[in-house]
Every structure is written in structure tokens, then in C-alpha cells.
């Protein structure tokens, strides 16, 4: 993982080639979770197609992760990279806010 970050850091200057590392935490197949998955995929495919890694974590399966990642509200999307880290909660239906959170618009 660290190596990956290093490589990515080198590329950081290059805005267009910036690689996005996203983690989406969901709760099984709940309505919000399913919607969040669909929405974030769609946004990413439209705006940063091919330049992102999306990891989907089911908190029900890994309960210990909730404390480790300071999770309260779900679904939660963490933009691990590029820095700064940003957290977005909700079903990702507010596209503008998601884009803002990803740093794609101001």
C-alpha cells in the first residue's frame, strides 16, 4: 500500500493524471448502501474514469473497522487520496456535494 502511495505522490503534481483512492463503507444490502454504490460508481465513471480505485467495505462483515475508521454514519465514502482526506456520508445522491468532496469542483 505504501509503495502505491509513493508512486501516487510522485504523480500528484500532474492534475490530469491524479489517481483517486476511495473507500466506501456500507451496511450490507440496505437501501442507502445500494444507492450509494450505484451513485458513486456513476459519478466516478463520468468524472474520473479510469483514474480511481474504489474499495467497498461491508461494515457488517468487518465490525472492528468501525472503531478503527471512526465510523458513525453510513454509508461513508473516504477519499484517501489525493490529500487532504475527505469524508462524505450519505447515499451520494447529491452529486454536486460529492464532486466538491472529491475536490473536482470548488
Amino acid at each position, binding site marked *: 500500500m505504501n509503495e502505491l502511495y509513493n508512486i501516487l505522490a510522485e504523480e500528484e503534481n500532474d492534475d490530469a493524471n491524479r489517481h483517486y483512492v476511495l473507500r466506501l463503507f456500507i451496511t450490507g444490502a440496505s437501501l442507502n448502501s445500494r444507492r450509494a454504490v450505484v451513485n458513486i460508481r456513476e459519478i466516478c465513471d463520468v468524472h474520473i474514469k479510469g483514474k480511481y480505485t474504489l474499495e467497498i467495505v461491508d461494515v457488517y462483515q468487518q465490525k472492528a473497522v468501525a472503531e478503527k475508521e471512526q465510523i458513525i454514519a453510513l454509508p461513508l465514502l473516504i477519499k484517501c487520496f489525493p490529500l487532504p482526506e475527505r469524508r462524505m456520508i450519505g447515499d451520494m445522491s*447529491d452529486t454536486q456535494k460529492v464532486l466538491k468532496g472529491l475536490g473536482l469542483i470548488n
Partner: protein
Amino acid sequence: MSSETQTQKSALPSLPKARTGIVGLDEISEGGLPKGRPTLICGAAGSGKTLFSMEFLVHGALKFNEPGVFMAFEEKAEELTMNVASLGFDLQQLQQDKLIKLDHVHVERSEIEETGEYDLEGLFIRLGYAIDTLGAKRVVLDTIESLFSGLTNMAILRAELRRLFDWLKEKGVTTIITGEKGEGSLTRQGLEEYVSDCVILLDHRVVNKISTRILRIVKYRGSVHGTNEYPFLIDEEGISVLPVTSLTLKHQVSSQLISTGIPSLDSMLDGKGFYRGGSILVSGSAGTGKTSIAGSFAHSTCQNGERCLYLAFEESPGQIIRNMNSIGMDLQTHIDKGLLRFQASRPTLHGLEMHLLSFIKQVDDFKPSVVILDPITNLVTVGSVSEVKNLLIRLIDFLQNSQITVMFTALTLMNSPSEQTDENVSSLVDTWLMVRDIETNGERNRGMYVMKSRGMKHSNQIREFVISEEGLRLVDVFLGPSGVLTGSSREAQQLLERTGEVLWDHALSRKDREIERKKMVLEAKISSLKEEFESMQDELNRAYIEEELRKEVQEKNREEMTRKRDSSK
């Protein structure tokens, strides 16, 4: 039929409770917090909410075998550990032993973007996981209201909180939720709407720059509970609540009498002293020897091998010991033997309630048979007269319940109408000794009398009260022609009377001598008269004998003559 209903009644399940282990709280809540249900602890910042909940958890883990989860929304785990370390709670060890789990929840609005519908399932999972791994029976959420500042969607938050509390109930964990006091409501976010089983309000009041902590059970569904405001104390042993207002007048009474330490005062009190478990007020103006009376009572108590707790508000223990030494009482030896304990503090150290609590803690700890408060007058500086009276009522009640004799001293000001402390306290006490200074002939003397002494025949006299190197002493009343005499005028009068006695003796002996003389004169007269009488008697006797003789001679002569004539014939 009736017996059947009775058995049915007793068989009815009563609300199960989880003991908090907090001193006094389990008494006023009749057993603790509702088991398996959420309880709301609300109060302003610094009112002790976190400490309260932490104690609940730690006692649960250590004493009642109920592990607990502490979810902190404000303080970090390390900070919490540090904060309660001063109370002797080793959270690190407890966490290692899997008895307690600390989880710090970090919510920061600026770091979170809300992008649509969400729920708090993350919190549920997190809490659920912690509960399940520990087998926790107790949970603390401190302060869940922080969520409201981190998240903006009120509708979701409220719905989720409602769900959370239901879920906690379902899990059967006893939960404490803390909430900051809001304007006009118990909590800022109206948490009391969700938590309806038990609500406890903590308050921290500052009156006259002196703070008092107050606890009140606002509601407790399905249970009887004390409804008063109970003061509580946070000290090195944590929180202690003392149900000092839930007292009734049912205490046992003793008819045993204990000595006052002043034999002549004992004799004024039916010859024996004070009743054990009674309350005694010693009042008087400045410098009349109130502390000396208290000191001698303490001295005599310790000499009898009993314990005495001396609460001083004006003098330091060293000062009292020195002063008592000067009148022949060695208190230091009693301290060394562990029979006497001094507790000196300025009244302004803390509020009245706190004073009461610390008194009671001291009493519970030391278990004395006599408590002395010297003087209560100074307590008025931290509360109004009625508050002080209230405190004393409760203190007297508490002490009488434990059969502890209590002596108060109180200062009265001679020339002001404020014999207030007296007037307000005097109705409470069993025995009231009044020490007054009597000013005559340019000197000041102490006079003492027993204003009242319930349940005994006491002297109604004013006695002069003398403090000397040998201790305290009451001098017999001296009634002169112009009333009761004290001090040097008493001595002068005594002297005068002694002179009178000598004179009287003298006069008496002179009269005696005169009588003796008169007697002698008369006796001389009597003897001369007697002699006169004897000589007269002699005279009479001589005449009588002469007459006899003459008669005899004449007779003889006549017989001679007759015979002679016969022979001549």
C-alpha cells in the same frame, strides 16, 4: 382469598435495578439505576456528569461483575484515563482485563460532507461490537449530543437516536446517556424525550462565591425514589451523595448521662451531665470561655476512652491544644492515642452542604461518640441563618441517629439584636448553656447558667464560672444584699462577712464574760444572804433553847418546892 392476593402482590416482579456503587445514590434511588434501560444524566458543564458515569462503569466492572463500554464523544481515551486516575481508577488495566472498553468517537462537521440519506448504523455496529466482545452489561454515551454539532440532518439524527435507545433496551444493557443542560429544558437537544425511564439532574451552584453540587432524581419510572435535591461531594474517593434530608424523627434515645468535664457543671445538670446522643449549645459573647467548655468536654470524653471529633472553624488545632494546655488539659496525649481528632477548616472553604457532607464523612470514618463544632457562628458567613439552621437540623438528626452527642458553640453579640444564631438553633438543642459576662465594679466576670436541659431537673441559678490553671470551675452563687456578686466584689463581700463573723465571735465572748461576772456577783449575794439567814436561824434557835431550859429549870424548881413543902407538913 386475601392471602392469595398478597402472595400475588409480593410475587409481582419489581423493577430490576443496577447498583451504581456510588455512595448514597443507591439509597435514594432505592437500589440503583433501572437495569437494562437508559438513564439520562444531565447537567451544566463541570457538574460531574462524566465522572458520575465513569464511576458507574468502574464500580460495575469491579464490584458487580458487569463489564462496560464507555463511548466518549468529547474526551479522548487517554484524557479520560488520566482524568480518573486521580480517583484511583486504572482504566488502562481495566481495559487490558477486558472489563471496560473506552471508545472515543470523533465527529467533526468540517471534515464531513453530507451527500444524501444516511443512518447511524456505523455507531450501532461499533457499539454492538464493543458490547459483544466484552459481554458488557453497562454502556455510557458521553455526550451523545455532540453528534448534533457534527451532523446537520436533525430529522435523521432524531430518528436514529430513538432507534438507538430502543436498540440498547433490546440489548438489555444499562445505559447512561449524558446531556448538557439547555435553556429552559433539561438538555440542549431534548434528549429527555427519548430517555423516559430515569432522569438525574446534576447541578453546580455558586452562591456567595461558594459552590455546592446538587443531585436530583427528576424522574424514575416504576420506582419510588427520593425527590429532594441532594448535595454531593467529589473528592479523592469519587462521588458521594448523602441522603441527609430523608430523615425522620425516629431515632433511639439514650438515658445514659455523660460528664461535661466540669464537676460543678455536672451538678447543675441533675448531678450527672448531658444525655448521650443529645445536642448541646454553648452560647455566649466573645471571650467567655466557650471553647474552654468545649475543650473540657472533649478532654473528659477522651479520658473516658471514647472518641471525640473536634471540628474547628476559628482556631487551628495547635492553637486549641496550646490554649487548653494553659488551663491544665493535655489534649495532645488524646490525639496521640487516636481518641481525639481535629478537623480545622475555614467555613468559606466550601458551601454549607459540602460542609455537612464532609462532617458526615468524617463521622462515618472516625466513629466518634462526641462531635464538637466550634463555633457554628462562622458558618453564617457561607449561608443564611435559615440555611445554617437547616444544616444543623440535619446534622443533629444524623448524629442522634448514631447516638453521637454533639456540642455547638455559638457567639452572641452583647449589644446587638443578633442573638440570631441562638434563637434559631436553641429550639433544636436539648441542652443550652449560656455563658455571659457580668460587668460590675470595673471588672468583667463570667457567669454561666443552664437555659434549658430537656428531660432533667437542672439548676436555675447563675453560677460564676472561673477559668484557672487547674481547669474550669463553677463557684457557688453568692448572694449579697445587692444581688448576685461575682469576681472581686464576691470576694470582698466574703471577706466582709468573715470580718463580721470575727467581730460577732468577739462580741459573743464579751457578753458571755459579763454574764459570768453577773452570775458571780449574784452568787456572792446569795451566799451572804444565806449566811445572814443562818445567823438569824441561830439566834432564833438560841432563844428557843433558852426558853426550854428556863422552862425545865422552873419545872424542877417547882417540883423541889412542892416536895419540900410536903416534907414540912
